[in-house]
């Protein structure tokens, strides 16, 4: 690949929340890189800190939150050349008036609740454009219709006069996507955009996001707990557990050569229709750690069937596996005993590789 342009660079981000029960450390030292034209997926269970991370990027701060440290560097071009800013340092006003909507946009999880029920689709769509693109009402209306057509809504002129309650969930999510793309953002954040939708519509919305991403050549950060979705859309995958990235790599790395036992668990727990009936659906035992408690060693250790003594004492560093693949588990330490992924998973990956090759051959 010729010089990739980095758009987002998160270093050592930590975020906590003050709750009635104490301080919840939701994100504990997170690193992440996003390049233009790429889709980066963040996968993890609920409560692993994915949503908190993207909310920090969007500058959506809860009143009881405190940022422990770190930087979120965002590079953009505001017409006067390229600029890099730390999103945690700039004023909320700058964030609100100059970055949001124009350079960073977001698609939310639940389309049923994310549109204003009292405003027509058209107005909601034009609002951002009138503000950021400095265009007139007529032009904005034309552009809005064009966007709606692009996201697959027929008869856009008529639809623009509709109110959200007159549209189905899938349609509303298309509208939300159109709103997000209305001002040509550099970075699009999708927070579980298909979770609330019917399975049949999920695939279409995913395809839409992928198509638009290619067309506009934007960077997409895709939050999900669904590995099937990840395999379909992502170039890079970050696996998140208890507020940290525990394995990161290209999609092939994560799916075909996973190294962290948690990733193994995640991959094994995908229901597989083609697989052996004898295979029992794998599940990861126990619960994610309570982030109210101080975590000592590897957060995954208590649930890890391959846990070692050191996992309970010291936090594993990121071990480099290749130029683009890293994982944080002591199993990669040269001193560790050799542990292979479970057989069942190995068979499954073999099958997936074959299938993949077959697809590639077509």
């Amino acid at each position, binding site marked *: 690949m010729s010089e990739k342009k980095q758009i987002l660079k998160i270093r050592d981000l930590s975020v906590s929340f003050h709750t*009635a*029960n104490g301080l919840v450390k939701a994100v504990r030292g997170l690193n992440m890189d996003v390049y233009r034209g790429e889709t980066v997926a963040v996968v993890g269970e609920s409560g692993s800190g994915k949503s908190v991370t993207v909310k920090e990027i969007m500058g959506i701060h809860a009143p009881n939150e405190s940022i422990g440290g770190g930087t979120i560097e965002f590079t953009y071009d505001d017409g006067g050349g390229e600029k890099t800013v730390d999103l945690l340092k700039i004023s909320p006003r700058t964030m609100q008036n100059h970055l949001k909507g124009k350079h960073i946009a977001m698609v939310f999880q639940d389309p049923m609740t994310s549109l204003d029920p009292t405003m027509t689709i058209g107005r909601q769509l034009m609002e951002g454009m009138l503000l950021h693109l400095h265009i007139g009402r007529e032009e904005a209306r034309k552009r809005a219709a064009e966007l709606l057509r692009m996201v697959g809504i027929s008869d856009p002129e008529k639809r623009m006069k509709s109110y959200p309650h007159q549209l189905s969930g899938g349609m509303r999510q298309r509208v939300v996507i159109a709103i997000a793309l209305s001002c040509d953002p550099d970075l699009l954040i999708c927070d579980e955009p298909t979770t609330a939708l019917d399975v049949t519509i999920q695939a279409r919305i995913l395809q839409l996001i992928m198509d638009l991403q290619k067309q506009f050549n934007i960077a997409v950060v895709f939050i999900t707990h669904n590995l099937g979705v990840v395999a379909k859309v992502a170039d890079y995958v970050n696996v998140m557990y208890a507020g940290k990235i525990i394995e990161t790599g290209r999609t092939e790395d994560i799916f075909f050569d996973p190294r962290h036992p948690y990733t193994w668990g995640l991959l094994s727990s995908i229901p597989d229709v083609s697989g052996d009936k004898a295979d029992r659906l794998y599940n990861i*035992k*126990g*619960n*994610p*750690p*309570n982030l109210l*408690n101080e975590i000592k060693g590897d957060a995954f*250790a*208590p*649930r890890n069937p*391959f*846990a*070692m*003594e*050191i996992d*309970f*004492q010291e936090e594993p560093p990121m071990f480099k596996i290749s130029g683009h693949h890293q994982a944080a588990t*002591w199993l990669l*330490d040269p*001193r*560790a*005993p050799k*542990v292979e992924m479970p057989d069942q998973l190995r068979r499954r990956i073999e099958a997936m590789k074959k299938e993949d090759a077959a697809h590639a051959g077509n």
Partner: protein
Amino acid sequence: MNDEKFCLCTGEHTEEAEKEYANDSYAKEALHHFTANKGAVVSVFIILIIILMAIIAPILSPYSYKDVQAQYSNLPPRVPGLEQLGVFNGYRNGANVYAQKGALDQYHYFGTDNLGRDIWTRVWSGTRISLYISGIAVLIDVFIGIIYGLISGYFGGKTDIFMQRVTEILSSLPQLVIVTLMLVVMKPGLLNIIIALMLTGWINMSRIVRAQVLKYKNQEFVLAARTLGVGSRGIIFKEILPNTLGQIIVTFMFSIPNAIFLEAFLAFVGLGVPAPIASLGSMINDGYKSAMVYPYMVMAPVIVLALLMLGFNLFSDGLRDAIDPQMKQT
């Protein structure tokens, strides 16, 4: 040495995975929310003190709420101890009224009214009556409201539509008019006032219960119970009712100050408990006419009434906030 740490360990750490979510119980968390709310904590004390006074003050007082002592009428407040400080000393316009009327051996903490009755005793026995009336009315309301709401919400269909129309019409009748007419016909007495208050009070409760039932009746745990063959009664009382309890208690608490107010209001327009009996409203009604000359006569019942309503409102607020955050999450 260091390598020892790199041996796979089997078993000895499993308990750590289990204990992670030894979470606080619902009740404990709600209590925590409640006690963090200063207004709510203060309100508990206000309510308790007023209830306590309503119970013991009339018993301990040397006067009775109905003893007329015409020669000692309109005495200003006089409290032993405080009188040395120059307040509550029985003086009016620079003269000791107690001395003028030959009542220096008496102490009326809140003074006496125009018939010479001890206001202190009357205020607390009036509080007792007000609490009694509103308490009983609200309890019956809750009972009717829960039954009505449960039936309407649970059985749905035509039953629900019919029952909803009935409440819709009943609630578009102004409560004031219904209650007034009721009392004009029946003549105010303790029982009749309770009936009048009860007549319209249950509608709100039934609405809330119905909404809650609708919310829960199609949830998985109810469906599961039904699949297991639990009958309607079991589902209503074992599955749905316990889940709606929080909302019911909050609504119940909010209805108490309403009933207290309504009783006071009725007494104020002349539909209160009959004469010698005091209620806060009837005392305000008696006292307000002379409020410009003897402000203390109306002040005492007004302050107690205000504190009582403030206490119950703050308490209910705190209770709702303590119960609500959990409700929003589900």
